Protein backbone atom coordinates (compact mmCIF):
# COMPACT_ATOMS: atom_id res chain seq x y z
CA UNK A 1 0.00 0.00 0.00
CA UNK A 2 1.81 3.07 -1.20
CA UNK A 3 0.09 5.44 1.16
CA UNK A 4 1.92 8.56 2.24
CA UNK A 5 2.99 8.80 5.88
CA UNK A 6 1.67 12.33 6.18
CA UNK A 7 -1.91 11.20 5.60
CA UNK A 8 -2.11 8.82 8.56
CA UNK A 9 -4.04 10.35 11.48
CA UNK A 10 -1.24 10.54 14.02
CA UNK A 11 -0.35 13.37 16.37
CA UNK A 12 1.34 16.18 14.42
CA UNK A 13 4.57 16.05 16.43
CA UNK A 14 4.94 12.33 15.79
CA UNK A 15 4.18 12.76 12.14
CA UNK A 16 6.79 15.47 11.81
CA UNK A 17 9.40 13.17 13.36
CA UNK A 18 8.55 10.32 11.01
CA UNK A 19 8.81 12.57 7.99
CA UNK A 20 12.10 14.09 9.12
CA UNK A 21 13.36 10.55 9.78
CA UNK A 22 13.01 9.93 6.07
CA UNK A 23 9.91 7.69 6.02
CA UNK A 24 7.66 8.45 3.08
CA UNK A 25 5.27 5.56 2.60
CA UNK A 26 3.51 3.39 5.16
CA UNK A 27 5.11 0.34 3.57
CA UNK A 28 8.49 1.52 4.81
CA UNK A 29 7.07 1.90 8.30
CA UNK A 30 5.63 -1.59 8.34
CA UNK A 31 8.89 -3.09 7.10
CA UNK A 32 10.96 -1.44 9.84
CA UNK A 33 9.08 -2.91 12.78
CA UNK A 34 8.59 -1.31 16.20
CA UNK A 35 12.10 -1.75 17.60
CA UNK A 36 13.79 -0.39 14.53
CA UNK A 37 11.35 2.50 14.42
CA UNK A 38 11.93 3.44 18.02
CA UNK A 39 15.70 3.42 17.51
CA UNK A 40 15.64 5.51 14.35
CA UNK A 41 13.11 8.13 15.46
CA UNK A 42 14.00 8.23 19.13
CA UNK A 43 10.59 7.31 20.56
CA UNK A 44 9.80 4.59 23.06
CA UNK A 45 8.97 1.06 21.90
CA UNK A 46 5.36 1.37 23.12
CA UNK A 47 4.84 4.53 21.09
CA UNK A 48 6.35 2.88 18.03
CA UNK A 49 3.99 -0.08 18.45
CA UNK A 50 1.03 2.29 18.69
CA UNK A 51 2.08 4.02 15.50
CA UNK A 52 2.26 0.73 13.65
CA UNK A 53 -1.13 -0.35 14.96
CA UNK A 54 -2.72 2.87 13.79
CA UNK A 55 -1.08 2.49 10.41
CA UNK A 56 -2.26 -1.09 10.05
CA UNK A 57 -5.79 -0.12 11.07
CA UNK A 58 -5.79 2.63 8.48
CA UNK A 59 -4.68 0.30 5.71
CA UNK A 60 -7.31 -2.27 6.55
CA UNK A 61 -9.81 0.48 7.05
CA UNK A 62 -9.18 1.73 3.54
CA UNK A 63 -10.11 -1.63 2.10
CA UNK A 64 -13.18 -1.94 4.29
CA UNK A 65 -14.40 1.56 3.80
CA UNK A 66 -15.07 1.02 0.16
CA UNK A 67 -17.64 -1.62 1.09
CA UNK A 68 -18.97 0.19 4.16
CA UNK A 69 -22.42 1.70 4.09
CA UNK A 70 -21.84 4.87 6.05
CA UNK A 71 -19.25 7.53 5.48
CA UNK A 72 -18.77 10.08 2.78
CA UNK A 73 -17.42 7.60 0.19
CA UNK A 74 -20.68 5.77 -0.54
CA UNK A 75 -20.77 3.97 -3.83
CA UNK A 76 -23.84 2.64 -5.57
CA UNK A 77 -25.40 2.64 -8.97
CA UNK A 78 -28.17 4.99 -9.97
CA UNK A 79 -30.57 2.04 -10.14
CA UNK A 80 -30.00 1.22 -6.48
CA UNK A 81 -30.53 4.87 -5.64
CA UNK A 82 -33.76 4.91 -7.66
CA UNK A 83 -35.12 1.91 -5.79
CA UNK A 84 -34.17 3.53 -2.51
CA UNK A 85 -35.81 6.82 -3.40
CA UNK A 86 -39.02 5.19 -4.52
CA UNK A 87 -39.34 3.21 -1.34
CA UNK A 88 -38.67 6.23 0.80
CA UNK A 89 -41.43 7.95 2.66
CA UNK A 90 -42.29 11.61 2.72
CA UNK A 91 -43.33 13.74 5.64
CA UNK A 92 -46.62 15.32 4.68
CA UNK A 93 -47.48 18.89 5.55
CA UNK A 94 -51.29 18.45 5.55
CA UNK A 95 -51.48 21.03 2.78
CA UNK A 96 -51.91 18.85 -0.28
CA UNK A 97 -51.02 21.63 -2.72
CA UNK A 98 -47.68 22.10 -0.97
CA UNK A 99 -47.13 18.34 -0.84
CA UNK A 100 -47.79 18.13 -4.55
CA UNK A 101 -45.25 20.73 -5.55
CA UNK A 102 -42.70 19.09 -3.25
CA UNK A 103 -43.33 15.76 -4.93
CA UNK A 104 -45.15 14.12 -2.03
CA UNK A 105 -43.96 16.07 0.99
CA UNK A 106 -40.72 16.85 2.78
CA UNK A 107 -38.15 14.34 1.59
CA UNK A 108 -36.00 12.26 3.90
CA UNK A 109 -32.19 12.43 3.57
CA UNK A 110 -32.43 15.95 2.14
CA UNK A 111 -32.08 19.39 3.63
CA UNK A 112 -35.12 21.60 3.10
CA UNK A 113 -34.85 25.28 3.82
CA UNK A 114 -37.89 27.45 4.46
CA UNK A 115 -37.36 31.21 4.14
CA UNK A 116 -39.82 33.96 4.79
CA UNK A 117 -40.66 37.21 6.48
CA UNK A 118 -41.65 37.14 10.12
CA UNK A 119 -45.17 35.94 10.83
CA UNK A 120 -45.66 34.12 7.56
CA UNK A 121 -45.78 30.63 9.00
CA UNK A 122 -42.31 29.04 9.08
CA UNK A 123 -42.46 27.95 12.71
CA UNK A 124 -46.04 26.75 12.17
CA UNK A 125 -44.82 24.51 9.37
CA UNK A 126 -41.99 23.19 11.56
CA UNK A 127 -44.39 22.34 14.37
CA UNK A 128 -46.76 20.69 11.89
CA UNK A 129 -43.92 18.57 10.50
CA UNK A 130 -42.77 17.58 13.99
CA UNK A 131 -46.26 16.15 14.52
CA UNK A 132 -46.68 14.68 11.02
CA UNK A 133 -43.42 12.73 11.10
CA UNK A 134 -44.98 10.60 13.85
CA UNK A 135 -48.00 9.47 11.82
CA UNK A 136 -48.01 5.65 11.76
CA UNK A 137 -47.09 3.90 8.53
CA UNK A 138 -50.55 2.47 7.94
CA UNK A 139 -51.86 6.03 7.59
CA UNK A 140 -49.16 6.96 5.12
CA UNK A 141 -46.60 8.45 7.49
CA UNK A 142 -43.03 7.51 8.37
CA UNK A 143 -43.62 6.70 12.05
CA UNK A 144 -40.58 8.56 13.25
CA UNK A 145 -39.63 10.93 16.06
CA UNK A 146 -38.54 14.55 15.84
CA UNK A 147 -35.70 16.69 17.15
CA UNK A 148 -36.57 20.38 17.44
CA UNK A 149 -33.67 22.81 17.86
CA UNK A 150 -35.05 26.24 18.67
CA UNK A 151 -32.85 29.35 18.51
CA UNK A 152 -35.57 31.99 18.56
CA UNK A 153 -37.84 30.79 21.32
CA UNK A 154 -40.93 30.66 19.13
CA UNK A 155 -41.89 27.07 19.98
CA UNK A 156 -45.20 27.18 21.82
CA UNK A 157 -46.31 23.91 23.40
CA UNK A 158 -50.01 24.78 23.44
CA UNK A 159 -49.96 25.25 19.69
CA UNK A 160 -48.31 21.86 19.22
CA UNK A 161 -51.04 20.35 21.40
CA UNK A 162 -53.69 21.83 19.08
CA UNK A 163 -51.92 20.57 15.97
CA UNK A 164 -51.39 17.11 17.47
CA UNK A 165 -55.03 16.86 18.54
CA UNK A 166 -56.20 17.74 15.02
CA UNK A 167 -53.82 15.16 13.51
CA UNK A 168 -55.01 12.41 15.86
CA UNK A 169 -58.61 13.25 15.07
CA UNK A 170 -57.87 13.10 11.34
CA UNK A 171 -56.39 9.61 11.76
CA UNK A 172 -59.36 8.49 13.85
CA UNK A 173 -61.72 9.53 11.07
CA UNK A 174 -59.73 7.64 8.46
CA UNK A 175 -59.74 4.55 10.68
CA UNK A 176 -63.52 4.82 11.10
CA UNK A 177 -64.00 5.10 7.37
CA UNK A 178 -61.82 2.08 6.58
CA UNK A 179 -62.24 -0.17 9.61
CA UNK A 180 -58.98 -2.01 9.14
CA UNK A 181 -57.24 -3.81 11.95
CA UNK A 182 -53.80 -2.34 11.74
CA UNK A 183 -55.33 1.13 11.71
CA UNK A 184 -57.01 0.53 15.03
CA UNK A 185 -53.91 -1.06 16.50
CA UNK A 186 -51.75 1.90 15.49
CA UNK A 187 -54.24 4.31 16.98
CA UNK A 188 -53.79 2.74 20.40
CA UNK A 189 -50.30 4.20 20.67
CA UNK A 190 -50.90 7.36 18.64
CA UNK A 191 -52.17 10.00 21.02
CA UNK A 192 -51.39 13.59 21.92
CA UNK A 193 -49.23 12.51 24.88
CA UNK A 194 -47.17 10.11 22.83
CA UNK A 195 -46.70 12.70 20.09
CA UNK A 196 -45.46 15.27 22.59
CA UNK A 197 -43.11 12.86 24.32
CA UNK A 198 -41.38 12.06 21.03
CA UNK A 199 -40.53 15.64 20.17
CA UNK A 200 -37.06 16.26 21.59
CA UNK A 201 -36.63 19.97 22.21
CA UNK A 202 -33.35 21.88 22.53
CA UNK A 203 -33.24 25.61 23.20
CA UNK A 204 -30.00 27.10 21.89
CA UNK A 205 -29.39 30.68 22.96
CA UNK A 206 -26.40 31.53 20.79
CA UNK A 207 -24.35 30.12 17.94
CA UNK A 208 -21.91 28.28 20.23
CA UNK A 209 -24.73 26.27 21.80
CA UNK A 210 -26.04 25.55 18.31
CA UNK A 211 -22.61 24.34 17.13
CA UNK A 212 -22.15 22.24 20.26
CA UNK A 213 -25.59 20.68 19.84
CA UNK A 214 -24.96 19.80 16.19
CA UNK A 215 -21.63 18.16 17.17
CA UNK A 216 -23.47 16.05 19.73
CA UNK A 217 -26.40 15.26 17.44
CA UNK A 218 -24.95 12.10 15.78
CA UNK A 219 -24.49 10.46 19.19
CA UNK A 220 -28.00 11.51 20.21
CA UNK A 221 -29.43 10.07 17.00
CA UNK A 222 -27.64 6.77 17.59
CA UNK A 223 -29.40 6.50 20.93
CA UNK A 224 -32.75 7.58 19.50
CA UNK A 225 -32.68 5.71 16.23
CA UNK A 226 -36.31 6.37 15.39
CA UNK A 227 -35.73 10.07 14.78
CA UNK A 228 -36.69 10.93 11.20
CA UNK A 229 -36.82 14.70 11.35
CA UNK A 230 -34.39 17.34 12.61
CA UNK A 231 -35.76 20.87 12.66
CA UNK A 232 -33.52 23.86 13.26
CA UNK A 233 -35.92 26.77 13.72
CA UNK A 234 -33.97 29.91 13.06
CA UNK A 235 -30.58 29.04 11.67
CA UNK A 236 -30.07 32.69 10.82
CA UNK A 237 -30.91 34.29 14.14
CA UNK A 238 -27.75 33.44 16.10
CA UNK A 239 -25.50 34.28 13.17
CA UNK A 240 -26.88 37.65 12.26
CA UNK A 241 -25.48 39.75 15.02
CA UNK A 242 -22.22 39.89 16.95
CA UNK A 243 -20.20 38.74 13.95
CA UNK A 244 -17.53 41.17 12.90
CA UNK A 245 -15.58 38.40 11.25
CA UNK A 246 -17.71 37.42 8.28
CA UNK A 247 -15.23 34.82 7.03
CA UNK A 248 -15.53 33.01 10.36
CA UNK A 249 -19.29 33.07 9.98
CA UNK A 250 -19.10 31.60 6.47
CA UNK A 251 -16.73 28.89 7.67
CA UNK A 252 -18.92 27.96 10.64
CA UNK A 253 -22.07 27.91 8.51
CA UNK A 254 -20.44 25.72 5.88
CA UNK A 255 -19.24 23.34 8.57
CA UNK A 256 -22.75 23.26 10.03
CA UNK A 257 -24.26 22.56 6.60
CA UNK A 258 -21.84 19.68 6.01
CA UNK A 259 -22.58 18.09 9.35
CA UNK A 260 -26.31 18.37 8.74
CA UNK A 261 -25.95 16.73 5.31
CA UNK A 262 -24.02 13.85 6.92
CA UNK A 263 -26.70 13.50 9.60
CA UNK A 264 -29.47 13.54 6.99
CA UNK A 265 -27.81 10.81 4.95
CA UNK A 266 -26.55 8.54 7.71
CA UNK A 267 -29.77 8.50 9.70
CA UNK A 268 -32.17 8.68 6.78
CA UNK A 269 -33.87 11.70 8.28
CA UNK A 270 -35.13 14.95 6.85
CA UNK A 271 -33.49 18.17 7.98
CA UNK A 272 -35.64 21.30 7.90
CA UNK A 273 -34.10 24.72 8.49
CA UNK A 274 -35.84 28.07 8.69
CA UNK A 275 -34.16 31.21 7.51
CA UNK A 276 -35.00 34.88 7.78
CA UNK A 277 -35.25 37.39 4.98
CA UNK A 278 -33.05 40.39 4.63
CA UNK A 279 -33.18 43.41 2.38
CA UNK A 280 -30.67 43.69 -0.39
CA UNK A 281 -30.24 47.32 -1.38
CA UNK A 282 -29.88 47.50 -5.13
CA UNK A 283 -29.27 50.58 -7.26
CA UNK A 284 -32.85 51.71 -7.52
CA UNK A 285 -34.85 49.41 -5.32
CA UNK A 286 -34.47 46.98 -2.48
CA UNK A 287 -35.49 43.35 -2.67
CA UNK A 288 -36.08 40.75 -0.03
CA UNK A 289 -33.67 37.87 -0.23
CA UNK A 290 -32.93 34.97 2.14
CA UNK A 291 -30.43 35.91 4.83
CA UNK A 292 -26.94 34.51 5.45
CA UNK A 293 -25.59 35.31 2.03
CA UNK A 294 -25.04 33.66 -1.30
CA UNK A 295 -22.80 30.83 -0.13
CA UNK A 296 -25.45 29.57 2.29
CA UNK A 297 -27.82 29.15 -0.63
CA UNK A 298 -25.84 26.09 -1.68
CA UNK A 299 -26.33 24.32 1.61
CA UNK A 300 -29.97 23.38 1.21
CA UNK A 301 -31.16 20.97 -1.42
CA UNK A 302 -34.72 22.20 -1.48
CA UNK A 303 -35.64 25.81 -0.85
CA UNK A 304 -39.12 27.10 -0.10
CA UNK A 305 -39.91 30.76 0.15
CA UNK A 306 -43.02 31.85 2.02
CA UNK A 307 -44.40 35.29 1.27
CA UNK A 308 -47.51 37.40 1.34
CA UNK A 309 -49.64 38.58 -1.54
CA UNK A 310 -52.10 41.09 -0.08
CA UNK A 311 -53.52 38.92 2.65
CA UNK A 312 -52.95 35.53 1.07
CA UNK A 313 -50.00 33.43 2.16
CA UNK A 314 -48.07 31.85 -0.69
CA UNK A 315 -45.37 29.23 -0.81
CA UNK A 316 -42.92 29.17 -3.70
CA UNK A 317 -40.67 26.23 -4.46
CA UNK A 318 -37.54 28.12 -5.29
CA UNK A 319 -34.93 25.41 -5.61
CA UNK A 320 -35.37 21.68 -6.08
CA UNK A 321 -33.41 19.01 -7.95
CA UNK A 322 -36.48 17.11 -9.06
CA UNK A 323 -39.55 19.34 -8.99
CA UNK A 324 -40.67 22.28 -11.04
CA UNK A 325 -40.66 25.80 -9.65
CA UNK A 326 -44.22 26.78 -8.69
CA UNK A 327 -46.28 28.73 -6.19
CA UNK A 328 -49.25 27.59 -4.16
CA UNK A 329 -51.42 29.30 -1.54
CA UNK A 330 -51.72 27.88 1.96
CA UNK A 331 -53.63 28.58 5.09
CA UNK A 332 -52.92 28.44 8.80
CA UNK A 333 -55.96 27.40 10.78
CA UNK A 334 -56.46 26.51 14.39
CA UNK A 335 -55.70 22.92 13.36
CA UNK A 336 -52.37 23.84 11.82
CA UNK A 337 -51.04 24.03 8.32
CA UNK A 338 -53.75 23.45 5.73
CA UNK A 339 -54.82 24.00 2.14
CA UNK A 340 -56.82 27.02 1.18
CA UNK A 341 -60.41 25.74 1.23
CA UNK A 342 -62.27 26.20 -2.06
CA UNK A 343 -65.20 28.65 -1.64
CA UNK A 344 -67.97 26.07 -2.28
CA UNK A 345 -67.47 23.70 0.61
CA UNK A 346 -70.40 21.55 1.74
CA UNK A 347 -71.19 21.25 5.43
CA UNK A 348 -71.24 17.43 5.53
CA UNK A 349 -69.70 15.30 8.22
CA UNK A 350 -65.95 15.70 8.69
CA UNK A 351 -65.27 12.53 6.72
CA UNK A 352 -66.47 13.93 3.40
CA UNK A 353 -64.67 17.24 3.91
CA UNK A 354 -61.39 15.44 4.37
CA UNK A 355 -61.01 14.26 0.82
CA UNK A 356 -59.32 17.34 -0.70
CA UNK A 357 -56.67 17.17 2.05
CA UNK A 358 -55.82 13.55 1.64
CA UNK A 359 -52.60 12.67 -0.06
CA UNK A 360 -52.96 10.77 -3.37
CA UNK A 361 -51.10 7.81 -1.84
CA UNK A 362 -53.62 7.30 0.90
CA UNK A 363 -56.49 7.12 -1.58
CA UNK A 364 -54.79 4.14 -3.19
CA UNK A 365 -55.08 2.26 0.06
CA UNK A 366 -58.87 2.42 -0.08
Amino acid sequence: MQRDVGSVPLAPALRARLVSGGFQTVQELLETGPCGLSKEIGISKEEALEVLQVVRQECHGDAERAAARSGASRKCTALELLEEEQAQGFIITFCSALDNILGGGVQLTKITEVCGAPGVGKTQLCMQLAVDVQIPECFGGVAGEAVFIDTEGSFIVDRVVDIAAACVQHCHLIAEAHQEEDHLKALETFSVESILSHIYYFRCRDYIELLAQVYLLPDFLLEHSKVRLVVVDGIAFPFRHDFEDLSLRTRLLNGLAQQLIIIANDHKSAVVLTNQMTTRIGQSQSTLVPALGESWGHAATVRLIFHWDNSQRLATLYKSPSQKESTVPYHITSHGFRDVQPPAVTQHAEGAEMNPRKRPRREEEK
Partner: protein
Amino acid sequence: MAAKKLRRAGLSQELCERLSRHQITTCQDFLCLSFLELMKVTGQSYYDVQKLLCKVSRACAPKMQTAYEMKLRKSVSPSSAFLSTTLHSLDKVLHGGVPCGSLTEITGPPGCGKTQFCIMTSVLATLPVSMGGLDGAVIYIDTESAFSAERLIEIAGNRFPTYFDSEEKLLCMTRSIHLYQELTCGSVLKRIMSLEEEIISKKVKLVIIDSIASVVRKEFDTKLQGNLIERSNFLARGASVLKYLAEEFSMPVILTNQITTSLSNGLAIQADRVSPADDLSLSE
Protein backbone atom coordinates in the same frame (compact mmCIF):
# COMPACT_ATOMS: atom_id res chain seq x y z
CA MET B 1 -22.50 29.29 28.28
CA ALA B 2 -20.19 30.09 25.46
CA ALA B 3 -17.78 31.97 27.67
CA LYS B 4 -17.34 28.93 29.86
CA LYS B 5 -13.71 28.33 30.59
CA LEU B 6 -12.23 25.15 29.19
CA ARG B 7 -10.91 24.17 32.58
CA ARG B 8 -14.49 23.81 33.82
CA ALA B 9 -15.45 21.79 30.78
CA GLY B 10 -13.43 18.88 32.08
CA LEU B 11 -10.23 19.16 30.07
CA SER B 12 -6.97 18.26 31.77
CA GLN B 13 -4.85 20.97 33.34
CA GLU B 14 -1.88 20.60 30.99
CA LEU B 15 -4.13 20.66 27.94
CA CYS B 16 -5.73 23.87 29.16
CA GLU B 17 -2.31 25.44 29.69
CA ARG B 18 -1.20 24.41 26.26
CA LEU B 19 -4.34 25.87 24.71
CA SER B 20 -4.07 29.12 26.65
CA ARG B 21 -0.64 29.63 25.13
CA HIS B 22 -2.52 29.89 21.81
CA GLN B 23 -5.08 32.25 23.36
CA ILE B 24 -7.78 29.59 23.51
CA THR B 25 -9.38 29.79 26.93
CA THR B 26 -13.14 29.52 26.45
CA CYS B 27 -15.41 26.95 24.86
CA GLN B 28 -16.28 29.51 22.23
CA ASP B 29 -12.66 29.77 21.05
CA PHE B 30 -12.35 25.99 21.00
CA LEU B 31 -15.49 25.30 18.98
CA CYS B 32 -14.78 27.97 16.39
CA LEU B 33 -11.60 26.29 15.20
CA SER B 34 -11.50 23.78 12.40
CA PHE B 35 -10.36 20.20 12.88
CA LEU B 36 -6.88 20.69 11.50
CA GLU B 37 -6.29 23.74 13.65
CA LEU B 38 -7.44 21.81 16.70
CA MET B 39 -5.07 18.95 15.93
CA LYS B 40 -2.19 21.36 15.53
CA VAL B 41 -2.96 23.25 18.69
CA THR B 42 -3.62 20.28 20.94
CA GLY B 43 -1.01 18.03 19.40
CA GLN B 44 -3.35 15.06 19.48
CA SER B 45 -4.56 12.59 16.92
CA TYR B 46 -7.76 12.82 14.88
CA TYR B 47 -9.77 10.44 17.04
CA ASP B 48 -8.66 12.07 20.27
CA VAL B 49 -9.63 15.50 18.95
CA GLN B 50 -13.08 14.14 18.12
CA LYS B 51 -13.46 12.96 21.69
CA LEU B 52 -12.29 16.33 23.00
CA LEU B 53 -14.80 18.08 20.78
CA CYS B 54 -17.61 15.96 22.17
CA LYS B 55 -16.46 16.71 25.70
CA VAL B 56 -16.40 20.47 25.14
CA SER B 57 -19.72 20.37 23.28
CA ARG B 58 -21.34 18.55 26.15
CA ALA B 59 -20.26 21.38 28.43
CA CYS B 60 -21.97 23.98 26.23
CA ALA B 61 -24.94 22.19 24.75
CA PRO B 62 -28.46 22.87 26.04
CA LYS B 63 -30.39 20.30 27.99
CA MET B 64 -32.91 18.16 26.18
CA GLN B 65 -36.56 18.20 27.17
CA THR B 66 -39.46 16.59 25.40
CA ALA B 67 -42.48 18.65 24.41
CA TYR B 68 -44.51 16.56 26.84
CA GLU B 69 -42.37 17.64 29.79
CA MET B 70 -42.79 21.26 28.73
CA LYS B 71 -46.56 20.87 28.62
CA LEU B 72 -46.65 19.24 32.05
CA ARG B 73 -44.60 22.06 33.49
CA LYS B 74 -46.95 24.63 32.00
CA SER B 75 -50.12 22.90 33.15
CA VAL B 76 -48.84 22.92 36.73
CA SER B 77 -49.23 26.72 36.91
CA PRO B 78 -51.72 27.73 34.20
CA SER B 79 -52.61 31.14 35.55
CA SER B 80 -49.06 32.40 35.30
CA ALA B 81 -48.97 31.89 31.56
CA PHE B 82 -50.62 35.17 30.62
CA LEU B 83 -51.13 38.70 31.84
CA SER B 84 -54.75 39.53 31.18
CA THR B 85 -55.29 42.91 29.55
CA THR B 86 -58.82 43.18 31.04
CA LEU B 87 -60.15 43.88 27.55
CA HIS B 88 -62.25 40.80 26.98
CA SER B 89 -62.20 40.64 23.21
CA LEU B 90 -58.44 41.28 23.09
CA ASP B 91 -57.85 38.58 25.68
CA LYS B 92 -59.94 36.15 23.69
CA VAL B 93 -57.98 36.78 20.52
CA LEU B 94 -54.68 36.44 22.38
CA HIS B 95 -55.87 33.24 24.08
CA GLY B 96 -55.59 34.69 27.55
CA GLY B 97 -53.69 37.93 27.32
CA VAL B 98 -50.13 39.10 26.93
CA PRO B 99 -48.06 35.90 27.04
CA CYS B 100 -45.42 35.48 29.72
CA GLY B 101 -42.02 34.37 28.54
CA SER B 102 -42.02 36.06 25.16
CA LEU B 103 -41.78 39.45 23.52
CA THR B 104 -44.92 41.25 22.44
CA GLU B 105 -44.85 44.17 20.04
CA ILE B 106 -47.49 46.90 20.04
CA THR B 107 -47.51 48.97 16.92
CA GLY B 108 -49.63 51.72 15.49
CA PRO B 109 -49.78 55.26 14.17
CA PRO B 110 -49.05 58.13 16.55
CA GLY B 111 -51.83 58.95 18.97
CA CYS B 112 -53.61 55.63 18.77
CA GLY B 113 -52.92 54.67 22.36
CA LYS B 114 -49.70 52.64 22.62
CA THR B 115 -48.31 54.56 25.57
CA GLN B 116 -51.71 54.49 27.26
CA PHE B 117 -51.75 50.71 26.84
CA CYS B 118 -48.32 50.49 28.37
CA ILE B 119 -49.31 52.64 31.33
CA MET B 120 -52.37 50.50 31.91
CA THR B 121 -50.47 47.23 31.78
CA SER B 122 -48.01 48.64 34.30
CA VAL B 123 -50.90 49.18 36.68
CA LEU B 124 -52.21 45.68 35.96
CA ALA B 125 -48.85 44.12 36.68
CA THR B 126 -48.71 45.59 40.16
CA LEU B 127 -52.12 44.17 41.09
CA PRO B 128 -52.22 40.98 43.18
CA VAL B 129 -52.62 37.64 41.40
CA SER B 130 -56.19 37.26 42.65
CA MET B 131 -57.18 40.31 40.61
CA GLY B 132 -55.42 39.07 37.48
CA GLY B 133 -52.13 40.86 37.99
CA LEU B 134 -48.58 39.66 38.46
CA ASP B 135 -47.97 41.13 41.92
CA GLY B 136 -44.60 42.50 41.04
CA ALA B 137 -42.65 45.57 40.06
CA VAL B 138 -42.41 47.03 36.58
CA ILE B 139 -39.41 48.34 34.69
CA TYR B 140 -40.44 51.02 32.24
CA ILE B 141 -37.82 52.22 29.77
CA ASP B 142 -39.07 55.43 28.26
CA THR B 143 -37.33 56.86 25.21
CA GLU B 144 -39.84 59.51 24.25
CA SER B 145 -40.47 61.05 27.66
CA ALA B 146 -44.12 60.23 27.16
CA PHE B 147 -44.76 58.62 30.53
CA SER B 148 -47.02 60.67 32.75
CA ALA B 149 -47.21 59.75 36.40
CA GLU B 150 -50.40 61.72 36.89
CA ARG B 151 -52.08 59.75 34.14
CA LEU B 152 -50.89 56.58 35.85
CA ILE B 153 -52.62 57.54 39.06
CA GLU B 154 -55.72 58.63 37.18
CA ILE B 155 -55.99 55.26 35.42
CA ALA B 156 -55.40 53.32 38.61
CA GLY B 157 -57.91 55.32 40.61
CA ASN B 158 -60.68 55.19 38.00
CA ARG B 159 -60.21 51.64 36.86
CA PHE B 160 -59.89 49.96 40.21
CA PRO B 161 -61.52 52.32 42.66
CA THR B 162 -62.20 49.58 45.20
CA TYR B 163 -58.60 48.44 45.30
CA PHE B 164 -56.91 51.81 45.23
CA ASP B 165 -59.20 53.30 47.79
CA SER B 166 -56.53 55.06 49.76
CA GLU B 167 -53.72 57.46 48.92
CA GLU B 168 -51.35 55.01 50.56
CA LYS B 169 -52.17 52.20 48.10
CA LEU B 170 -51.67 54.48 45.10
CA LEU B 171 -48.30 55.62 46.33
CA CYS B 172 -47.28 52.04 47.01
CA MET B 173 -48.15 51.15 43.44
CA THR B 174 -46.20 54.04 42.00
CA ARG B 175 -43.18 53.06 44.04
CA SER B 176 -43.04 49.70 42.31
CA ILE B 177 -42.90 51.16 38.80
CA HIS B 178 -39.27 51.91 37.99
CA LEU B 179 -38.89 54.43 35.21
CA TYR B 180 -35.71 54.83 33.18
CA GLN B 181 -35.40 57.57 30.62
CA GLU B 182 -32.92 56.62 27.94
CA LEU B 183 -32.43 58.80 24.94
CA THR B 184 -29.83 57.04 22.82
CA CYS B 185 -29.47 53.56 21.33
CA GLY B 186 -26.28 52.96 23.27
CA SER B 187 -27.84 53.77 26.61
CA VAL B 188 -30.91 51.65 25.83
CA LEU B 189 -28.69 48.69 25.05
CA LYS B 190 -26.62 49.23 28.17
CA ARG B 191 -29.81 49.41 30.24
CA ILE B 192 -31.12 46.17 28.70
CA MET B 193 -27.84 44.40 29.46
CA SER B 194 -27.96 45.47 33.11
CA LEU B 195 -31.57 44.40 33.64
CA GLU B 196 -30.88 40.90 34.90
CA GLU B 197 -29.71 41.88 38.37
CA GLU B 198 -32.34 44.58 38.75
CA ILE B 199 -35.09 42.13 37.91
CA ILE B 200 -33.99 39.82 40.67
CA SER B 201 -33.38 42.49 43.30
CA LYS B 202 -36.55 44.50 42.67
CA LYS B 203 -38.79 41.46 42.01
CA VAL B 204 -39.79 42.77 38.61
CA LYS B 205 -42.56 40.97 36.74
CA LEU B 206 -42.93 43.12 33.60
CA VAL B 207 -40.56 45.02 31.33
CA ILE B 208 -41.87 47.69 28.97
CA ILE B 209 -39.81 49.56 26.37
CA ASP B 210 -41.64 52.55 24.91
CA SER B 211 -40.62 52.91 22.17
CA ILE B 212 -37.74 51.13 20.57
CA ALA B 213 -38.42 52.66 17.18
CA SER B 214 -37.89 56.26 18.15
CA VAL B 215 -34.25 55.89 19.23
CA VAL B 216 -33.48 53.67 16.27
CA ARG B 217 -34.95 56.06 13.77
CA LYS B 218 -33.19 59.02 15.34
CA GLU B 219 -29.75 57.47 15.07
CA PHE B 220 -29.80 55.22 12.04
CA ASP B 221 -30.62 56.40 8.57
CA THR B 222 -31.05 53.39 6.34
CA LYS B 223 -30.14 55.35 3.27
CA LEU B 224 -26.57 55.74 4.50
CA GLN B 225 -24.01 53.07 3.75
CA GLY B 226 -23.49 50.53 6.52
CA ASN B 227 -26.21 51.92 8.77
CA LEU B 228 -28.63 49.13 7.97
CA ILE B 229 -26.17 46.51 9.20
CA GLU B 230 -25.43 48.42 12.38
CA ARG B 231 -29.10 48.94 13.02
CA SER B 232 -29.86 45.24 12.58
CA ASN B 233 -26.94 44.39 14.86
CA PHE B 234 -28.23 46.67 17.58
CA LEU B 235 -31.79 45.38 17.28
CA ALA B 236 -30.76 41.74 17.17
CA ARG B 237 -28.53 42.09 20.23
CA GLY B 238 -31.26 43.82 22.19
CA ALA B 239 -33.84 41.28 21.05
CA SER B 240 -31.78 38.27 22.07
CA VAL B 241 -31.08 39.66 25.56
CA LEU B 242 -34.76 40.54 26.03
CA LYS B 243 -35.85 37.08 24.88
CA TYR B 244 -33.43 35.49 27.29
CA LEU B 245 -34.78 37.61 30.15
CA ALA B 246 -38.40 36.91 29.21
CA GLU B 247 -37.83 33.17 29.13
CA GLU B 248 -35.58 32.98 32.14
CA PHE B 249 -37.95 34.88 34.42
CA SER B 250 -41.19 33.79 32.68
CA MET B 251 -42.39 37.34 32.37
CA PRO B 252 -43.92 39.36 29.55
CA VAL B 253 -41.85 41.95 27.72
CA ILE B 254 -43.73 44.64 25.82
CA LEU B 255 -42.14 46.76 23.10
CA THR B 256 -43.79 49.53 21.16
CA ASN B 257 -43.07 50.35 17.58
CA GLN B 258 -43.94 53.13 15.17
CA ILE B 259 -45.20 52.77 11.64
CA THR B 260 -44.15 54.21 8.39
CA THR B 261 -45.28 54.04 4.80
CA SER B 262 -43.79 51.26 2.78
CA LEU B 263 -42.76 52.27 -0.67
CA SER B 264 -43.73 49.59 -3.09
CA ASN B 265 -42.98 49.72 -6.80
CA GLY B 266 -41.58 53.20 -6.38
CA LEU B 267 -44.95 54.74 -5.45
CA ALA B 268 -45.77 56.10 -2.02
CA ILE B 269 -48.76 54.13 -0.84
CA GLN B 270 -51.35 55.78 1.32
CA ALA B 271 -52.38 54.92 4.86
CA ASP B 272 -53.78 51.47 4.26
CA ARG B 273 -50.41 49.93 3.30
CA VAL B 274 -48.26 50.93 6.24
CA SER B 275 -45.79 48.52 7.76
CA PRO B 276 -43.81 48.59 11.01
CA ALA B 277 -40.74 50.76 10.93
CA ASP B 278 -38.54 48.21 12.54
CA ASP B 279 -36.17 46.00 10.73
CA LEU B 280 -37.62 42.57 10.09
CA SER B 281 -35.19 40.90 12.41
CA LEU B 282 -36.76 42.42 15.51
CA SER B 283 -40.27 41.21 14.83
CA GLU B 284 -39.09 37.59 14.78
